[in-house]
Structures are given as structure tokens and as C-alpha cells.
């Protein structure tokens, strides 16, 4: 599946929820279920500080695809992190850098990505792009 197709799949999943409570309950479930990052990567080097909730992000280049793992100490943040990873992990750096991530707006979670939100997600997206950029350069060498 392309990134756009995965985004579309997430949008369809979320369209089933009629009210915000079901949507957040699902996010919380995603957050709790996420088999995330290896403990050794939950250090200051991988920490994206968002003032209130902390996010750890790690990336590996497997073949020519970037594989992301992540975690957060807040479960709603973690749920959104898991969506981002699901959509972006396992793709070529070029594709990741082109992704617009419009799905967060469409499923009504855009506010979580606003820079004023103290959850580290905005910085996480920037960090994802930085990893992709670095791997892109590496692949082009």
C-alpha cells in the first residue's frame, strides 16, 4: 500500500465512529496496543521534548525503506504516534518526504499537530522528516 492508500484506510476506519468518545477510546486502544520501541532507544538522544508528554522516536534503514519505532508516556499521544508510524513506516525516504499527512485533519485530530499543543507531535513529524532526509542522502550516495 502507498502512504496515500494507508491514510485512506485510517480515514475509513475513523469514519465509523459517530462520537468523539468512541474515536478517543479507539486511539487509546491503539496507544495501549502499540508494540513500540526497544527500551534501549528510550533515552535522551531519542527523546522529542514536548513539554508535557514525551515522545521517543527511532528509525532504521532496512533495504531502501525507513522503519520507525516510537513511544510516548501519554496514551493519546501514543495512539496518534501509532497512526503516524502505521502510515509512514516501511516506505522509501522520497515517499515519506512527499507525504502531506492530511489524514489527521480528516479524522479530526489536526489540533494535536498544532505547534501550540504541548505534546511533542509536531516536533515528532519534523524529526521523522529529518530521518527521511538523512536516509535519502545516504541512499543517493
Amino acid at each position, binding site marked *: 500500500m502507498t502512504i496515500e492508500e494507508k491514510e485512506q484506510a485510517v480515514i475509513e476506519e475513523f469514519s465509523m465512529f459517530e462520537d*468523539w*468518545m468512541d474515536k*478517543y*477510546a479507539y486511539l*487509546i486502544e491503539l496507544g495501549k496496543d502499540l508494540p513500540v520501541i526497544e527500551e534501549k532507544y528510550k533515552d535522551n538522544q531519542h527523546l522529542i521534548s514536548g*513539554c*508535557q*508528554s514525551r515522545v521517543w522516536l527511532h528509525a532504521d534503514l532496512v533495504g531502501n525503506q525507513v522503519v520507525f519505532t516510537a513511544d510516548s*508516556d*501519554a*496514551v*493519546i*499521544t501514543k495512539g496518534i504516534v501509532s497512526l503516524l508510524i502505521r502510515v509512514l513506516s516501511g516506505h522509501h525516504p522520497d515517499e515519506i518526504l512527499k507525504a502531506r499527512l492530511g489524514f489527521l485533519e480528516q479524522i479530526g485530530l489536526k489540533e494535536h499537530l498544532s505547534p501550540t499543543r*504541548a*505534546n511533542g507531535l509536531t516536533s515528532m513529524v519534523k524529526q521523522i522528516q529529518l530521518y527521511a532526509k538523512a536516509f535519502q542522502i545516504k541512499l543517493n550516495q
Partner: protein
Amino acid sequence: MPFPVEKIRADFPVLNQQVHDKPLVYLDNAATTQKPVQVINRLSDYYLKENSNVHRGVHLLSQKATEDYEKARTTIAQYINAADSKEIIFTRGTTESVNLLATVLEEWIQPGDAILVSAMEHHSNLVPWQQLCKRRNADLKIVPVNDKGELDLEFLKKKLNPQVKLVAVNHISNVLGTINPVKEIVKMAHDAGVPVLIDGAQALAHTKVDVQEIGADFYAFSGHKVYAPMGIGVLYGRETWMRRLPPYQFGGEMIDRVSFDEVTFNELPYKYEAGTPNVGGALALESALQYVQNLGIEAIRKHEDVLLEKATHQLMKINGMRIIGEAKDKTAVLSFLVDGVHPYDLGTLLDQMGVAVRTGYHCAEPLMQHMGISGTVRASFALYNTEQEVDIFTESVLKAVNMLR
């Protein structure tokens, strides 16, 4: 007579709205309070009918604006019982008041001296003193807080000596709700010959402030936390101090005579009000304090104490609930944590339910480290909050906790 909260709410149009399709329950009052129409009208009347620069015009509008501005100063002086209206310096808010003082006290602090602050200070009454100590090679000493959120007065007493040049503490903690025994603190400090600054940012809306009774040398507060607009605040400074301290900023208004080589500075309070002041803000602050005065601060306090007690009692029924701040003397602020629940998650779900709270460090990061926690959820009450809102709040917390655990 019961507190007329429904009638009061009609004065605050902003409260009558929906967020996320739910009625707004505004419990972030320690961050900023809403403004009554009386205050908004005062501000808009100034711009609609009076706007003019003060203290220099020969024309009628300027004279009227000057008179009103000075009348506001007098009203505020009387409200906090300052000995003279020239002891009221208008600033942008508490932060600027503290920074002003930390700037003009520069020479007062010598290498080897010490400044005492409490562990429960807001960053705005901590960082200016920390930085001043760094500049002057002085020591910043921290008065600890016990598990209940009360200041260790014994420690304070022991640390007071001639090397200490200032004690800076808040009147009411923005995180814990603790009402500090400021009168006692001032007495202890003065017995040792040490001046005291009280950060009253959280106090004006909830308790009587009488600077002479407290005995404080300096008292700082913001308008926006007591139903006035943002961008106006006060530094009360005792005349004997402010007369001998140097100016803060230079420019118009604060001067007496100027030549290219020399200047003589204006008298108090103008010496500390360089540039065009926030006249509209000062008038609106006067109006806000009159609003509070009309309702009566004791009646307001009683009403808010009922809300605090009810909310505390209801929250305590939730499994794993931990109230942060259980001082004997406490008001209007309810910080808490729930086992296994991140404050950010709880705050996010409460927002979805229409309940506005604050989560995180509340600009008191060292206090959090001191108490071994990394943030709280904070509900803070104001005179327009209702018992019904407390019910919505505590039911919402329970609902959110059940979703998150």
C-alpha cells in the same frame, strides 16, 4: 444571602458558549480570569470617548484622561490600602513588576549576599532572582515546602541573617492553592532587617490584600487574574524604598528636566513609568477591582471555598486520586494526579467534554521536581463558577479516567 452566581454569570458573556458541542466549563482561572461587561465597557468607553495621551496635553481630552488615570491609581491604592497612591506603579503585569524590582535592586545585592525564595514560586518570581544572583555572585536560597504544600517557616527563620537582602514569596501558590502566612513571613524578615516582596498574582481575586497590614515592602500583581484585561499590572513599592532606588527604564514621562548632558528624574510614581502608559488598562483594572469590591471579597472567598471543598470531596472518591496541595489554608486551586493516568491525556479528554483545565508544570517546574512529580491537572475556580459546574467537572474526570485506565 446566597451568593448570586447566576446573576453574576450574566455579566460574563464569554461563559455562555459551547466548546466541542458541550457547554463551556471554564476552570482555568488561575491562568487568566474572564472579564465582566462592566470592565469591557470601561475599556471600550475609554477608546470610544476619551482616548488621549496623559500628563502632557493642554487640551480637555488629555486632562480628562489624566484625571481618570490618576483616579484609577488612587482607587487601586485604596483597594490594597497603600499609604499613598504614588506607591502604585503601573506595569504590564506581575512578571514586569518583579523584573522591574530585580533590575533596580541590582546595586542592593552585593557579592556574597543572599536572596530567599520559596520552592513554590512561579517562574516569574524565581528566574529574575536567580539571574540577579548570578549577575551579582550572590546565593539564591530556597525555602522548602512540605508534603502538604506548606512553607517551612522554621527553615526561613533559620536562614534569615544580615547577608540576606530580600525574601520573595507568593501570597497564594498557583499550583497548590496554599495561602502563605505572608504577614508572619514579613514580620520574621523585618525582625532580621530583610525587605520582602510578595507575588500577589493569585491573591487579588480570592483574598483581601492590605499591604500595610501585611507589612510588605513590595507587592506585585496582574490585572488579568482579577477580571481586568491582560497587559496591566501593579508594583506596589513602599515610598521610602522607591524614592531611593534608581529608575528602571528611561524615556518620556519619567524625567523632570533634560539637557543633552544631564537629566533629573521625575518623582514617584512617574520615575518608574517611562513611556506612554496603558491608560485604558489602568481604568479597566480600577473597574475590575470595583466589581470585586461590590460583591465583597469575603463572599467571593466563601463561594469559592464551597466549590473547592465540593470538588475535592468528589474527586477523592475516584480510585487512585492524589490531591497535590493539602495546606490547611488553601483556596480556589485544585491540582491533582490519578495513578496510571498522564495529565495530558486527562486534560485532552476533559477538553472534549467542554471542561477547560490546565495540565503540566504550571510554570513551576522546580516545584514539581521538589515534589517528585512531572506535572498535574489543575482546576481553578473563580467567582462565576457554579456547584453544577463542579459536578460536570468531577463526573468528566471520572469518565475520562475510566476511558484511560
